[in-house]
C-alpha cells in the first residue's frame, strides 16, 4: 500500500533493494534471476502508478531475486524494493518470488529474504492477496527439503508479507527501529480513528517478545549471515584429534575444544555448558555471533519465534540476553544476570 509513514523522509536515505543485497553478498557475486514483467492492467490509474514506480526505481516490479555468494557459499536471495509501490506484492511480484524460491530449492541453495513491504498490492485486490499462499507454500517446501531460510526484516514490514514469508525464517533478524506489524499504523488509524500504541510494532520490542532473534544493522548482515549459515548448513567442523568412537582423545585435543579433562567417558566433574567455552568471550556476555567469542559457530536463538515466553520473576534486572545474536542491548542498559 502506498502512502506516508513516520520515516517517509528517510526514503532518500533508504538503500535500494539491490544495494541492500550487495551488502551481504560477496562483492561481484550477485546474479539476478528476474525475467522481465509486462504491465497488463487495464486500470489507467494503476498503470500510471506502475509506470511512475518503474521510472523511480529502474525496476519493473517490487521484488528482486537472484543468487550470490556469502563467504564463498552460493545462496539465493529475494528482496523487496520499498520504493516500488511500498514493496507491495501483486501477481507479478508473487510469481517472481515463487519462481526464485522454487529454483533455490531445486538447486539446493540456502535462501536469504529481505522483506520491506506494506503488504498486498491493493490495486490488484483479492487475487493479489492469494499470492501469499503460494509464497508460503514455496517457502515451506524449501524448508522441508532441508534447506536454510534466513529472513532479515527491514523497515517497514507489515500486512501480508509479515503474515507469510516474513515470519517463516529458521532464523530472523530485523533492522534497528524497523516498523514491523501485522496491521500498518495508517490502516489502523483509517479504520479505527486512533493511533496504534507507540513502541509496540518495532523490531526491538518484538525481539524482546521472542518474535525476532536479533536486531542487526545492515553493516552486520554479511558477517552474521556467514556465521549462521556455517551452523545451519551443517558444516562439518570436528575438532582435530578427537576420536568419537572410542571416547578417548589424543593429547592435541586436550581441553581446548570442549573443556573436558582427561580421556574416557566423563561421569562426574565439571561439565562444559551446552554452549561451551567461557561465557563472555572477549567482549561481553552471551553472544556467540558478533562479539567474537571463541565459539564462532554458535547461533543463539531468541524465544520461540512465536511470541511466547516463560513467566518472569518479578522485579529482577534482566540481561540483554534476548539480543543474543547481536549482543546489542535493545533497551537502556541493564545489569547482566551473571
Amino acid at each position, binding site marked *: *500500500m502506498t*502512502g506516508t509513514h513516520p520515516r517517509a523522509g528517510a526514503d532518500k536515505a533508504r538503500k535500494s533493494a539491490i544495494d541492500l543485497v550487495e551488502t551481504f553478498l560477496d562483492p561481484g557475486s550477485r546474479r539476478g534471476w528476474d525475467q522481465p514483467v509486462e504491465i497488463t492492467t487495464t*486500470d489507467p490509474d494503476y498503470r500510471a502508478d506502475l509506470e511512475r514506480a518503474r521510472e523511480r526505481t529502474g525496476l519493473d516490479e517490487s521484488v528482486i531475486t537472484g543468487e550470490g555468494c556469502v563467504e564463498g557459499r552460493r545462496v539465493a536471495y529475494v528482496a523487496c524494493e520499498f520504493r516500488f509501490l511500498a514493496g507491495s506484492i*501483486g*501477481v507479478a511480484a*508473487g*510469481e517472481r518470488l*515463487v519462481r526464485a524460491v522454487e529454483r533455490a530449492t531445486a538447486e539446493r541453495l540456502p535462501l536469504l529474504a529481505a522483506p520491506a513491504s506494506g*503488504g*498486498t498490492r*491493493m*490495486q*490488484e*485486490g*483479492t*487475487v*493479489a*492477496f*492469494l*499470492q*501469499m*499462499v*503460494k509464497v*508460503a*507454500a514455496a*517457502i*515451506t517446501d524449501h524448508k*522441508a527439503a532441508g534447506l536454510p531460510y534466513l529472513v532479515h526484516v527491514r523497515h517497514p514490514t507489515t*500486512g*501480508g508479507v*509479515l*503474515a*507469510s*514469508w*516474513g*515470519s*517463516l525464517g529458521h532464523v530472523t533478524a530485523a533492522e534497528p527501529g524497523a516498523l514491523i*506489524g*501485522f*496491521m500498518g499504523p*495508517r*490502516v*489502523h488509524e*483509517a*479504520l*479505527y480513528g486512533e493511533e*496504534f*500504541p507507540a513502541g*509496540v*510494532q518495532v523490531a526491538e*520490542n*518484538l525481539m524482546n*517478545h*521472542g*518474535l525476532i532473534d536479533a536486531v542487526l544493522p545492515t553493516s552486520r548482515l554479511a558477517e552474521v549471515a556467514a556465521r549462521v549459515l556455517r551452523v545451519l548448513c551443517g558444516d562439518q567442523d570436528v575438532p582435530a584429534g578427537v576420536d568419537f568412537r572410542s571416547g578417548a582423545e589424543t593429547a592435541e585435543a586436550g581441553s581446548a575444544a570442549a573443556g573436558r579433562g582427561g580421556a574416557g567417558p566423563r561421569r562426574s566433574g565439571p561439565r562444559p555448558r551446552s554452549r561451551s567455552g567461557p561465557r563472555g568471550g572477549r567482549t561481553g556476555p552471551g553472544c556467540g555471533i558478533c562479539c567474537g567469542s571463541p565459539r564462532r559457530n554458535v547461533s543463539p536463538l531468541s524465544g520461540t*519465534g*512465536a*511470541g*511466547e515466553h516463560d513467566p518472569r520473576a518479578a522485579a529482577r534486572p534482566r540481561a540483554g540476553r534476548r539480543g543474543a545474536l547481536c549482543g546489542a542491548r535493545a533497551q537502556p542498559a541493564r545489569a547482566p544476570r551473571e
Partner: protein
Amino acid sequence: MVLGHNRRGRRGSERASAEGQPLGPAGLRTARRGMRIAAELGLPLLTVIDTAGAALSREAEEGGLAGEIARCLADMVTLPAPTLCLLLGQGAGGAALALLPADRVVAARHAWLSPLPPEGASAILHRTTERAYEVADRQGVRSADLLADGIVDRVVEEGEGEGEEFLGRLGHILGAELAALRAQDSEERLAARRARHRRIGLPS
C-alpha cells in the same frame, strides 16, 4: 474436524473452534491444533470462514499474530488430510486467509474475501471509507469474482430469509464435497491443491 471463526464470543459445540472475536494468536494456534489432529488421524478437515478480521492490539502483535497466520498458511497448504473450506460470510484479511488454502472451497452467495474490509481498502486508496462498494467491485472480493478467479470452486445460493433451508442445502453440498475428496487418490489430490494455489492470478 471442523475449524470455524466463532463470532459469538462463546464456544460453539464444534471441536477446536477459534476463540471469540476478534481472532488473536491463540485462536490461530487452536486452529493449528485442529489441523494437527486432522493430519495425525487422517480426518477430513472443514474450515469455516466468517470473520471481520484479526485482533489489532498490542497483545496480538506481541503474541505473534502475523507469524501464526503464516504458520496456518504453511500447515493448511501442506496438510495431508482432505480439506474443504466454506467461505460463509465475511472474509477479512489474514484471519480469513489463514483458513482458506484447501483442496476445495465452497462459498455462500453473499460471502466475500478481501485483504482488508472494503471500507479499509477504500480508506487506503481514496482516503475515505465512502467508496467501499466501488472498491469491492474492482477488487474482486465477491463470490462470483472469486469463482471466476479460481479462488472458489462452487457458490451456494442464499435466498431471502431462507435460514434453515439454506443450511440444509449447504450441509448436503458439503457432505458431497467431502465424500468426493475422500474418494480421490491422495497424491493426486495434494498435487491438485498445490497447482490450484500456484496458478491463482496467472493467465489461464
